């Protein structure tokens, strides 16, 4: 087997990777923001005592968790305009799609985190005259969010890798640009290897950082 690696070919195209990495990071941050906001809102709704809030939240969460992201993206980009006349650009579609998808998972992370806080904490907060919202913000969420960090980082890493599905909408993120590059250079193994390394270089430091954050938070209390 005499495969000869030619990474030097890729080296000439490094600007393509930098440009695509920026798009990947932007899409990740954008859909993360949407996902977190949706996740917090729907996670709280699913915990509500009112069925009128609980049921729609459950419907949203379970339908996005039980269907393929790829189909969700294609559907938002191609089918939604046909049905509703709303045509979003490819980047916006990707942001909305991944935001909705990760929002369903973040909702479950929020919900589990809030449920992990002992019931007595809410009792104690209410007994000193706090309203539900105050008790959530001051008493329940701080410890809940600490416990959410590991699953949160998990979901974050997953989300960043899911941005590669943007290639089906021709969004110029890392995978899409890599595929274009393969068409020009005919060096798929080298390109995919660099692609993997690029993701690792972005995601790994964030994992390290989160572990330090976790440790730092554990020291107090």
């Amino acid at each position, binding site marked *: 087997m005499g495969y000869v690696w030619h990474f030097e070919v890729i080296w000439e195209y490094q600007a393509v990777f930098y440009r695509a990495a920026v798009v990947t990071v932007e899409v990740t941050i954008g859909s993360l923001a949407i996902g977190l906001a949706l996740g917090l809102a729907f996670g709280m709704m699913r915990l509500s005592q009112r069925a009128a809030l609980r049921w729609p939240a459950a419907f949203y969460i379970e339908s996005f968790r039980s269907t393929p992201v790829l189909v969700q993206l294609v559907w938002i980009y191609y089918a939604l305009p046909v049905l509703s006349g709303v045509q979003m650009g490819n980047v916006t579609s990707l942001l909305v799609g991944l935001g909705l998808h990760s929002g369903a998972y973040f909702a479950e992370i929020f919900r589990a985190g809030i449920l992990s806080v002992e019931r007595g904490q809410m009792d*104690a907060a209410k007994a000193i005259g706090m309203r539900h919202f105050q008790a959530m913000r001051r008493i329940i969420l*701080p410890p809940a969010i600490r416990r959410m960090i590991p699953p949160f980082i998990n979901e974050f890493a997953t989300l960043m890798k899911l941005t590669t599905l943007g290639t089906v909408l021709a969004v110029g993120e890392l995978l899409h640009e890599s595929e274009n590059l393969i068409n020009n250079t005919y060096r798929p193994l080298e390109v995919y290897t660099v692609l993997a390394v690029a993701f690792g270089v972005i995601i790994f430091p964030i994992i390290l950082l989160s572990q330090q954050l976790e440790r730092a938070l554990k020291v107090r209390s």
Partner: protein
Amino acid sequence: MSETSAIRVRGLHKHFGANHVLRGIDLTIERGEVLVIIGPSGSGKSTLLRCLNFLEEYDQGEVWFGEHLVGYRRARDGGLVRDRERNVARVRAQMGMVFQGFNLFPYKTVLENVIEGPVIVQRQAPESAREDGLALLRKVGIADKADAYPSRISGGQQQRAAIARALAMRPQAMLFDEPTSSLDPELVGEVLDVMRGLAAEGMTMVVVTHEMGFARDVADRVVMMDEGVLVEEGAPSEIFRAPRQPRTAEFLRRVIH
């Protein structure tokens, strides 16, 4: 019973699903009175206590705290509807509650626990709240633990911190839900001493406890509860020396050996 009673309970019913936990409770607690509720576990004592500050929603009947109906308000048609959360919270703030499991906020120091209510709910300036809080911690004997986190102090100290947290709201009444039941035996005394001190100051107290010694020495009145009803009530001397109801006698035989 008079208009100036601290707490009045009328025809109170509470279900948990098919389980009929409170089956028509009538009870009046006067200002400055120490009422101790005794009875077997599962008799509804804690549920009754939690209905007093609406941590538990009752299904039927009325709970009055002074002139406030707790948890409900009169609708135009005369029926009762759920009160606004703000009003419920305002009434709750005037009743301190101490829990079996302490329920201190674990990520806050003892002093931060104590000033949380005054600063966040009553909007007292943090500086003066700290001064008041330290005075309360001195009163319950744990001023030296002000900056400790709850996990670093003993159960007895945690429960005293929880009492200080409740007192910081300057409540008109204090509810105690088995405050010594999760303490090691040697730590029970320090918590009961603090409660004795409060009673001596004239605090209105409703105490659910299995500490019969405390009930005998400190209570103005003892009520015996079983299967969701009040079986018997009277001065501790009557209840402990000559219970009228067989259920009370049977219960006391089992807990006092």
